[in-house]
């Protein structure tokens, strides 16, 4: 086990190093000036631009910029954002909680409600509930999340005024309101963006889980379990569902990086202060340091997704050994 962990850690470092090196040079090779934003509103002269280039090290050869980047990385620094004029690590750390809250809530809903509904559909294959849920999930899956977000914000937030249309917290909520009130406030703001993202993702998970479970239900060992007189709930959830989880676990691994990258539009529509919008702004503005920081995070999540998937496989299937 420890040998496996060490090997995976080394692999992860290698994957990250290759990914970041490719990204670093691709970014610099692509057209577009990282100081473009600086000239957006107030055009500046070439002389002023030269000073700014020197400030951000953009006047150096790309190879030297790469060496500086690697040296910074070793020290745990990702440089200073051109757009925000602040250390990238601080910017990422500020936005990470909002992303984890939104993405985590979606992930939890997705892999509880989605799995449960998928299993129910499979067990009731062809019945009215299955047909209804299939129709609903297909509609959900086909709905563009940014459109759904706009509709929910307008209807629930503006027309009915039931929940906040945007933002993550009420800035006027007094500090004396207490932790519970503030948590409730964040929860109220969380509902619409989570609903928007979940409706689409739950639909996908339901479809995966339904298909996987249908395959399992037809296998002979399920009949054996029933023949042994086991209660139906135990047959379904203990014997069936456990083996129908593998495709969904793979899906979970793929979903992890989407925590950051997949919610860009929803973050924009709901003014949610997460990493997605920060990363998108970095791309549009060619903010190299911020872009590298966001890429490192996403690449890290991809590696972590694969790692967690392997562990989950080993835990669920005794035939799989982490060696």
């Amino acid at each position, binding site marked *: 086990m420890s040998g496996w962990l060490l090997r995976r850690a080394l692999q992860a470092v290698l994957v990250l190093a290759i990914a970041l090196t490719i990204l670093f040079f691709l970014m610099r090779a692509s057209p577009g000036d990282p100081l*473009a934003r600086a000239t957006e509103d107030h055009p500046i002269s070439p002389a002023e631009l030269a000073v700014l280039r020197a400030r951000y090290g953009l006047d150096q050869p790309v190879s030297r910029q790469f060496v500086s980047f690697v040296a910074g990385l070793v020290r745990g620094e990702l440089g200073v954002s051109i757009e925000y004029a602040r250390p990238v690590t601080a910017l990422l750390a500020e936005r990470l909680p909002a992303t984890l809250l939104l993405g985590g809530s979606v992930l939890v809903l997705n892999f509880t409600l989605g799995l449960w509904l998928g299993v129910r559909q499979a067990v009731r294959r062809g019945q009215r509930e299955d047909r209804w849920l299939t129709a609903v999930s297909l509609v959900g899956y086909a709905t563009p999340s940014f459109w759904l977000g706009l509709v929910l914000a307008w209807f629930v937030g503006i027309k009915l005024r039931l929940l906040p249309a945007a933002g993550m917290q009420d800035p006027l909520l007094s500090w004396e309101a207490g932790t519970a009130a503030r948590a409730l406030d964040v929860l109220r703001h969380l509902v619409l963006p989570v609903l928007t993202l979940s409706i689409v993702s739950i639909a996908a998970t339901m479809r995966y889980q339904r298909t996987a479970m249908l395959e399992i239900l037809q296998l002979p060992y399920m009949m054996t379990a029933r023949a042994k007189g086991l209660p139906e709930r135990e047959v379904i959830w203990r014997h069936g569902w456990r083996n129908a989880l593998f495709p969904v676990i793979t899906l979970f691994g793929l979903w992890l990086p989407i925590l950051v990258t997949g919610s860009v539009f929803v973050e924009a529509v709901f003014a949610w202060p997460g990493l997605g919008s920060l990363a998108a702004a970095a791309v549009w503005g060619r903010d190299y340091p911020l872009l590298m920081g966001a890429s490192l995070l996403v690449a890290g999540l991809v590696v972590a997704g694969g790692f967690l998937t392997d562990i989950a496989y080993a835990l669920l299937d005794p035939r799989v050994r982490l060696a």
Partner: protein
Amino acid sequence: MTPWTPRLSVSAGLLLLSLAGSSAAQSSSSRRGSIVIVTGEQPTMPIPTMMEGAAGTQGNLELADQLFCRLAGLGPTLLTAGDRGFVPLLARSWTRRDSVTLAFDLDPRARWQDGVPVTARDVVFTFERARNPSIAPRLVALLRRITSVTAEGERRVVFRFSEPYAEQLYDATFHAAPLPAHLLDTIPPEGLARSSFVTHPVGSGPYRLVRTVAGQFVELAANQDFFLGRPKIGRVIIRVASDPDARINLLLSGQADAIDNVIPPLDNLHRIKRDTSLRLIPVPSPSVGFLLFNQRDPADPAAPHPVLSDLRVRRAITLGLDRHLLVHAVFGSYAEVPYGPVSSILWIRNGAPKARRQDVEEARQLLAAAGWRDSDSDGIRDRAGQRLQLSLLLPTTSAVRRKLAVLIQEQLRQIGLALELQQLEFPLWIERRTGGKFDIDFAGTIQDPSPSGLTQAWSCTGGTNVAKYCNPRVDSLLDVAIRGQPKENPGQPWFAALRQIEDDAPATFLYAPFYVYAVKRHYRNVSIMPASSWLLLREWSDSR
């Protein structure tokens, strides 16, 4: 369906309702005497002398105006020439010793937010920082005519200029609000951006910074000891939403009380108009949009542009466009067609001639005179086998320009000119335009209140003259206008320069919009300054 499915649905519904039920009532009492302003840009560096490069955003400039006071402010006329159009702030008065020397007397009541008096030393210190080229390259250029800033005692500061010109007072007061020397003189200039002063600034303005919640909002509290009177609105939240729809949703859902610059499409304004609790306030804006004609061949910058170097073609394009119709289609009544590169914020707009109306017939005659004729009757003119075809460069980020470009393409087709639209991602667009790789650039700029900034783009040696337009007569006229002493009509020398620019047609000047703000009606004494939207917030009151 099992019995627990409806139970689950009911529980989820109840949870939602209880969340909704705990709505804004909790904070309704804290709303009184406060205001939530929703804006598109997160302020990152609202510190005078530090707002350079990417930090030179409107969000930073406007927040800095709440935290820091200038020596004097622009008055309602926005007149930057002479000494008449300004109102006293940190300086209670100023005197002109000679044509190149201005002395300011500081208001003895002025205090930093830590209670220390504002002194002449602070002003001297600030201008030392502002004229440091490694810190503030843009400011150095703007302040190049200030030769020295010296203190005479605690309360008097003297500015000396390299030459007599009309905007000495403007240069001394507008570009850099004083910083507290007693807090900053131990921090090296290059270390200021990473110092705690940036996150916890101590200013001299009507509001102090309480907290910044990253990506969400900035909270300000009234400076109770502000020397010009305590602000009536005690708490200000500047809430950030980069998406225009999210901004409008925040306003219409009651989560915000005011919004800056409701951008087109006009449907956005119609949505807000339907809410009777809001009022719309159009304000002159520093924005101006135009079609910039490259004078040089994009393939060979040493050679003149094969088509656009001909004045007749440039004039034909301008006359071929119904600019008033274009502007109305996109901005409704909230924009005008400018005369020259003049936004609605520039005082020289007042009294300037009117822009010419569309004249398709004259446009066609000009093109024919230049040798462009439709010899193959395909609707597009040609000359010596070459079609009259040009490309229009524009950024994908501007919905206004994207919409206008399509309309312009159609109108120019009517005079036999084929326009190819090249929509580029913003950084790529900047790279192409600054490299001179374009025929026509759909430019949009934000101007300072001073017309002297026109030299940057419209003089032969202007730093941002990417189209390489050059007419020494224009340079001379601009120079006269800048150096001129304000008399009865200080705009006259500027009008002469603008007339020459219009005659040369280096661009088709399309729109000078008004920004449209929306504010809840229960705020009284509402006044929005074009140069800095919320500058007079300290005079607003809340009638709730």
